[in-house]
């Protein structure tokens, strides 16, 4: 009771100073958003570590210290980024570029998928859909500061979980997080991701999607993709039949895989174990693959998402699907042969892999139907991105 009363009083006290604190923070840092963040952080810090007299003098001191910390962190990051840039040979794209805009290891996506709400939703909207904090705040009907706090807390949880999974070896997964940081557009500061960013291509399907399934070795996989991506940026890709649908859906510079969803967080290892057994499940997966391809061919969004989990349905944007359908539908309509290749075990899903041979003579494609128990958790289309750029 005592603690509760004390905190309530603290909050009231802090709120009373909120307006002043924002102005004070604005005086410490030039950027308006930085000032807002600083004010929020100060409030949080003071609330978590209350002093006897949490008056303005104490708030000012905390705010100043945090501002200094931020400045130092920014400087350190600048130095690291400059060092990283100078270490890269000019002909070779940096890792961030190599992985396109958003390829993260599947594990990262799974960790995100496993986050509690509202953190998962906020992270997905911000980093996978590319929506600004302001946009998210409007959409969810919460203050922008709340969104920023959720982002910070959500990312902290992701880091902790990844640390735990990698036995504290942060270097092994750190690079994979890079795509979570929106890439600055030309002319934008690297230190401050743009708040307003138009999602490119598939939004979740183009970001997580690629990313998630991308589960690539941030290095190796990136190779072909990067080369391909660089070429795609500089040349028109619209008329090249060899570049099949998924690439077009992802847009120039995007990578190899189209993943329409994260794994369903409700997955259970035992269910997955059962799924790996040969038997009717395989037939179901193949049947499902056929149905999904047919839905793509028919541009039937409802049919496409009908078999998916709630998260799958929420994650597949109609615009992205229409784009996929426009590109792949004609190809599929000419006729195809779908052959099961086998299954691949993942933490939360079992992926059923199929090869598609097109009657029109187009390149073969690999599709993945990710199943979580009996539910469809993801659908991927893989195209020939591991190939080198055409000379």
């Amino acid at each position, binding site marked *: 009771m005592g603690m509760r009363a004390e905190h309530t009083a603290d909050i009231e006290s802090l709120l009373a100073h909120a307006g002043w604190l924002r102005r004070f923070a604005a005086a410490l840092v030039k950027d308006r958003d930085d000032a807002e963040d600083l004010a929020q952080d100060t409030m949080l810090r003071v609330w978590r570590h209350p002093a006897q007299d949490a008056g303005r003098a104490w708030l000012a001191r905390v705010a100043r210290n945090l501002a200094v910390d931020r400045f130092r962190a920014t400087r350190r990051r600048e130095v690291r980024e400059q060092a990283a840039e100078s270490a890269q040979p000019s002909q070779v794209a940096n890792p961030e570029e190599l992985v396109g805009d958003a390829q993260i290891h599947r594990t990262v996506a799974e960790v995100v998928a496993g986050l509690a709400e509202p953190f998962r939703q906020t992270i997905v909207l911000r980093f996978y859909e590319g929506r600004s904090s302001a946009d998210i705040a409007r959409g969810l009907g919460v203050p922008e500061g709340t969104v920023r706090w959720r982002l910070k807390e959500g990312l902290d949880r992701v880091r902790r979980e990844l640390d735990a999974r990698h036995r504290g070896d942060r270097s092994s997964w750190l690079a994979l997080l890079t795509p979570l940081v929106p890439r600055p557009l030309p002319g934008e500061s690297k230190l401050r991701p743009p708040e307003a960013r138009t999602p490119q291509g598939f939004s979740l399907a183009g970001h997580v999607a690629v990313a998630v399934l991308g589960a690539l070795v941030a290095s190796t*996989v990136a190779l072909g993709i990067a080369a391909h991506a660089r070429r795609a940026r500089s040349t028109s890709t619209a008329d090249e039949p060899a570049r099949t649908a998924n690439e077009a859906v992802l847009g120039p510079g995007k990578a190899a895989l189209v993943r329409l969803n994260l794994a369903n967080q409700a997955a259970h290892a035992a269910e997955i174990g059962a799924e790996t057994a040969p038997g009717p499940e395989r037939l179901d997966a193949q049947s499902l693959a056929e149905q999904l391809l047919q839905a793509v061919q028919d541009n039937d969004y409802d049919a496409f998402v009908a078999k998916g989990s709630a998260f799958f349905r929420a994650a597949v944007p109609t615009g992205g699907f229409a784009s996929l359908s426009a590109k792949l539908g004609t190809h599929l309509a000419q006729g195809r042969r779908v052959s099961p290749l086998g299954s691949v075990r993942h933490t939360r899903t079992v992926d059923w892999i199929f090869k598609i041979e097109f009657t029109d003579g187009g390149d073969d494609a690999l599709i993945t139907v990710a199943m979580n128990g009996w539910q469809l958790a993801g659908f991927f289309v893989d195209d020939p991105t591991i*190939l080198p750029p055409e000379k």
Partner: protein
Amino acid sequence: MKKQPFLYLVPALALCLLAAYARPAHAAGTAPSEAEKALTKMIEAVKAESYDAFLADAGANLKKQLSRQQFEGMCGLYTKSLKQGYTLEYFGQLRQRGMAIYVWKVSSPGAQEDVLVKLAMKDGKVDGVLVF
């Protein structure tokens, strides 16, 4: 008497059906020895964390694009589990951009997840590799 041949057809048909069902659903055939050998060498190179060994069978394209830093990043993800052993399951071959792409599943008792590996071969060299 005229119906007797059909009596032989029944067990024959049953045998055919049995044979069809007994085949693996993803009968992938056999991986070309050249490609499988290259993949095995690459996996061993990841286990040994040897950048040079990894690129021993690589074509110019792959050599040009794979930095040591990238390779080390990959080792950070897979070396530990691969050292506990692994099995390869050949999934089949794709035809993409006029090249042969070979697909395997790599499973390791030390890993919670399998990985799918695509290997692009060109003129007897590994020209691209995708792990996901």
